[in-house]
């Protein structure tokens, strides 16, 4: 039986461009090293509880999740969870804001781990090649919301819905608990570094050891014709449907949550 490192370092359906990297810069052995090194964080610090990863279907998939926190720790936890729980192993391609490529070190590190800049052509390529992508439709409005509005979905972009219709991708809503309390923002400075919209000031210098939960809802398989992606009303309806599913998933998850740190 292959180890976690072996499964990730040699993923099925990896689009190797001839030197061990895919065209976005993903390097599976490096990703495997990071996943193994992050095991203490996943198992002991955040004590991640995962349910429903078996629901992730094959083929092109869009994971849609709620978003919070100073830095995308929730994205990292979700990606770690997908890598550890999916069978066969699927490499999640987190879709990043377009200012990320400007960041030295971060841009390169993210690329090696599978993060992809959120341009239309990039995402189209990924879905056309059957990959699994991770999108936070709230964008920066999610982390920017005040603490009192935690677990309330903010501005909801519809691009993911258009992509799902156009490329016949399944949508899996994912509720993430813990991101809101782990690294709350207490202030936002209007300083734009490398194109980031603001400079967040966190409550603590590092994320707090809250208990993370990742819950996957049943996949939504759209029966739309790809041409419906050009109809704004159809796209908005799909986006709203997914939002409602995710809100319900969040509400249900919070009801059974044992506690923030337990």
């Amino acid at each position, binding site marked *: 039986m292959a180890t976690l490192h072996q499964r990730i370092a040699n993923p099925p359906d990896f689009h190797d*461009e001839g030197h061990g990297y895919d*065209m*976005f*810069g993903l390097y599976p052995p490096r990703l495997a090293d990071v996943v193994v090194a992050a095991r203490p964080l996943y198992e002991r610090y955040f004590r991640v509880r995962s349910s429903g990863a078996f629901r992730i279907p094959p083929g092109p998939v869009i994971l849609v999740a709620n978003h919070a926190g100073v830095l995308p720790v929730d994205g990292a936890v979700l990606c770690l969870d997908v890598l550890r729980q999916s069978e066969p192993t699927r490499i999640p391609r987190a879709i990043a804001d377009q200012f990320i490529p400007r960041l030295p070190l971060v841009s390169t590190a993210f690329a090696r781990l599978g993060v992809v800049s959120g*341009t239309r052509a990039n995402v189209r390529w990924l879905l056309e090649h059957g990959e699994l992508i991770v999108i936070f439709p709230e964008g920066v409005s999610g982390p920017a919301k005040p603490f009192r509005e935690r677990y309330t979905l903010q501005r909801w972009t519809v691009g993911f819905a258009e992509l799902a219709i156009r490329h016949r991708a399944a949508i899996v809503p994912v509720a993430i608990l813990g991101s809101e309390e782990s690294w709350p923002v207490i202030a936002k400075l209007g300083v734009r570094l490398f194109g980031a919209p603001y400079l967040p000031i966190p409550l603590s210098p590092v994320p707090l050891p809250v208990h993370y939960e990742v819950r996957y809802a049943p996949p939504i398989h759209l029966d739309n014709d790809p041409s419906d992606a050009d109809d704004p009303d159809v796209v908005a309806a799909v986006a709203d449907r997914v939002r409602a599913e995710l809100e319900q998933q969040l509400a249900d998850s919070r009801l059974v949550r044992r506690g923030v740190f337990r």
Partner: protein
Amino acid sequence: MRVLVTGATWGVGAALVRRLVEEPGVELVLAVGRDGADPPVSHARLAYRVADLGRARAVHDLVMGDARAHAIDRVFHADENALSSLDLVHACTNHPTIRRLVYRSFAEVYALGHTTANIIDEDSRLDFDPTSPRWVRHRVEADTALCARMHGPLSIAVLRFAEVFAAGARSQLWDYARSRVCLRPLGFDPMINVLSMEDAVEAALAALRSTAVGVFNIPGADTLPLSAVIAECHRMDIPVPGPLLAPLYSLRTSVTGLEFRYDLNFRRFHFGAVLDGTRAHEQLGFTPQFQIHWPAPWWQQFAAKLRG
């Protein structure tokens, strides 16, 4: 086929001429080089002319003189003077025998930055930034001028080649990798796609044979990070803070005379970009097959020299 090849004494043009003269179905190759340059090969099927295509009169005389006399039906334009393309397409349009023009363009015509995609298809934005280096602006102008004439009587194909990574191809990356020490921006390691000379010739041949009109990206079979390019060339890889690179490489150019210019490569040394070759695959039947012949380590080259 009776083919006119410009820029025939170096790089892709020369390699294409050497291939065409051996190709069944090619009756004649009219190769054009600059003053002082020798023809790439001697062959019964080769006619060689010297012309400075930077002058409109020279272009006109070539096309209406030699090309008409030899009943040329296809043209592959790889002359280094990009703006000669404008005169060439004007002369070839309504020509009595020329039916097809294939223009060798460059991936550098595409705009590249933090908001551009990693996958560049033919509909991606071109670099119309007026502050871009003149080398880029001329090629964008030539490329767009040919695209504008695509639906006229002349069948035109514009091939946007990835960087041909080979000696004699006037490749910026090849020149960059000639140094024992390669500097790159600290914190950035973008994906680079390079094309072998063999694949460049195959793409040119496919385009000459085809009747498909349009713009076609021609990617290479090697996609790898910049650090891996340096490692494959057995060079020392040193990341330095970005602002130091331009003055350091200017100094290198003035001291050594080598041609690598950091201003031409600034963006691709920060932002990865790979050409999407789907259209060339579907319409020209071209898929890159030949990987780069990476240079051997210096000790192997030395040993080979000793062995003679």
